[in-house]
């Protein structure tokens, strides 16, 4: 760098009780500048005159220097006079001199236990109210639908059905097939010790039809469809698209939520049946190849153990899971913040709360079906 301009400099001359400091040269924050402390080392004065008469250029570095000088003179109890400073530099120095208002002290240590519990409880209460709101709105919307007054478009619903039905067949199929294989393997290891190989069919058939089939389909859909619903609705909200619907007098529940819920409600049982079938197929493959159980025997055994009540419990659960996925996805989307971060949060919490509620409702169903003897 070929700088022709002289570097920043400051010279101190003592005149009786007064220290006169001449400041000059080019002051740049990127270049070195004289340090005030080395200038006045060991001096004790009553008055300081800072004269900027040979200044070629200046920026914030000069203001920093002046701040330092002023602080020093205040500590010394000396009077401080500035002369010949450009008006802009003086204003900058004054800005620096102002003590920033202290921000409120951050709470230290552990946060108050009561406050944390209280806030968490309040948040939970708000969420419960939100769920109740959406369930209520959906019930009203359902009422309008059956009276033929809902602004419900079957074309939207069919598109959603394709998205959460036909499009998820490969992934749901693969996962269910593999779960069938895993269960058959684990079961076979134990059952073989007792020579009860053929009961692998019972094990796989019952657990797939009653639990794993609907559950696997639901978890895949919660991750895929629930997150997509939340992200779509949250983006629409951020773009004011939902406001635009409302001012058109269209209920976003009728128009956006109901087609999605209906699609999931109708598709989930079908997906569960498909998932059941592939799970059993997976078990059959293992039994045939590893355990040497003929497929016809496996099929007969499976048919003998699964009855209609097993199938219906699975299907009832599947439909419930569908509603849960739709509710949590749409709720998170509709209640999201109007920002890009809000969209991400909506998608994440839709999946988390969706899966949580699926497991919880599965547990509740286990108790109900047990007491019904199904």
């Amino acid at each position, binding site marked *: 760098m070929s700088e022709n301009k002289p570097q920043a400099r400051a010279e101190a001359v003592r005149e009786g009780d007064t220290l006169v400091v001449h400041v000059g040269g080019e002051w740049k924050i990127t270049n070195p500048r004289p340090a005030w402390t080395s200038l006045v080392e060991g001096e004790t004065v009553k008055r300081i005159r800072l004269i900027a008469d040979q200044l070629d250029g200046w920026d914030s570095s000069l203001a920093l220097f002046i701040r330092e000088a002023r602080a020093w003179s205040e500590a010394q109890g000396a009077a401080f006079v500035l002369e010949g400073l450009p008006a802009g530099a003086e204003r900058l120095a004054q800005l620096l001199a102002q003590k920033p208002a202290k921000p409120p002290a951050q709470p230290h240590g552990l946060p108050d236990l009561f406050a944390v519990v209280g806030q968490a409880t309040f948040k939970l209460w708000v969420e419960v109210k939100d769920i109740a709101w959406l369930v209520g709105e959906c019930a009203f919307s359902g009422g309008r639908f059956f009276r033929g007054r809902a*602004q419900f478009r079957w074309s939207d619903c069919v598109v959603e059905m394709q998205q959460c039905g036909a499009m998820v067949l490969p992934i749901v199929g693969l996962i269910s097939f593999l779960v069938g294989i895993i269960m058959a393997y684990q079961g076979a290891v134990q059952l073989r010790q007792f020579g009860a190989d053929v009961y692998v069919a019972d094990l796989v058939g019952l657990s797939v039809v009653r639990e794993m089939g609907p559950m696997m389909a639901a978890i895949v859909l919660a991750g895929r469809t629930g997150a997509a619903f939340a992200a779509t609705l949250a983006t629409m909200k951020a773009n*004011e698209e939902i406001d*635009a619907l409302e001012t058109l007098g269209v209920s976003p529940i009728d128009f956006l939520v109901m087609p999605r819920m209906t699609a999931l409600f109708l598709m989930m049982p079908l997906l569960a049946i498909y998932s059941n079938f592939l799970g059993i197929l997976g078990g059959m493959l293992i039994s045939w190849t590893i355990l040497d159980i003929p497929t016809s025997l496996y099929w007969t055994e499976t048919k003998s153990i699964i009855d209609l009540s097993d199938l219906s419990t699975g299907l009832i659960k599947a439909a419930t899971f569908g509603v849960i996925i739709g509710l949590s996805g749409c709720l998170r989307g509709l209640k999201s913040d109007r920002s890009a971060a809000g969209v991400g949060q909506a998608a994440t919490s839709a999946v988390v709360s969706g899966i949580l509620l699926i497991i919880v409702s599965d547990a509740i169903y286990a108790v109900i079906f047990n007491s019904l003897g199904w």
Partner: protein
Amino acid sequence: MNPPENANDKFAIEIDGLECRYGDRVVLEGVSFAVKRGEIFFIIGGNGCGKSTLLRHLIGLRMPARGTVRYSGRDFTHAEPRERQALLRTFGVLYQGGALWSSMTLHENVALPLELYTDLPEKDRAEVVALKLAQVGLAGYGDYFPGELSGGMQRRAGLARALALDPDIVFFDEPSAGLDPVTSLKLDELVQQIHATLGTTIVIVSHELASIFGIAHRVVMLDRDARGVIAEGDPCALRDGSDNPRVREFLNRRSGAVPAEGSK
């Protein structure tokens, strides 16, 4: 469909003692003004003065804490659902970014209000949509998705949708935000053109001085500290002769140094 003739008929919108709050925070209070039929009316003010809040209350996205909004003399704030639906159909809204439904083409966007609220057969509907798109200078763009258009075109498409049901009133929320001066001038011209052809009452929320002086018949100015209306009238007259220094500052695009009286 002509509304019944009565004393209120010359006002398209009447706002009476409106109070808007978010939780405990009062944003606006005691807001009262009226918009005449067939007027281009601006709601102006600095950032954070509550312009957009006021708009959201006018179009029914938020309920006012107090006060009423009346359209053509009919109470909108306390309307029964059926009446409210009917009133909603008398106005269209152009949102800041257009707020087009991103999963639908322009044609479908403009067609949806017609599909929901008219009995037009498919073929007539398509013609009306084409007409609306042509009106805003987007003829032939029906099959485009909003994401494929520039900001100015999205804004115009939003306007086509707002005009779909031929409303009496069209609200604009900061129509020129994010547009270059020429595009925003063209949008202003479009507004004037629509006003001239359809006689639509137009309410614009904006702080674009060029638009305000270019097309506004009347303005109200909101102020954050006053939490309400601080001036109402012709923008040029307010710029030169308002007794409120803030109004003059805003309309003259100056800060601090307000010239003393008699400087003109």
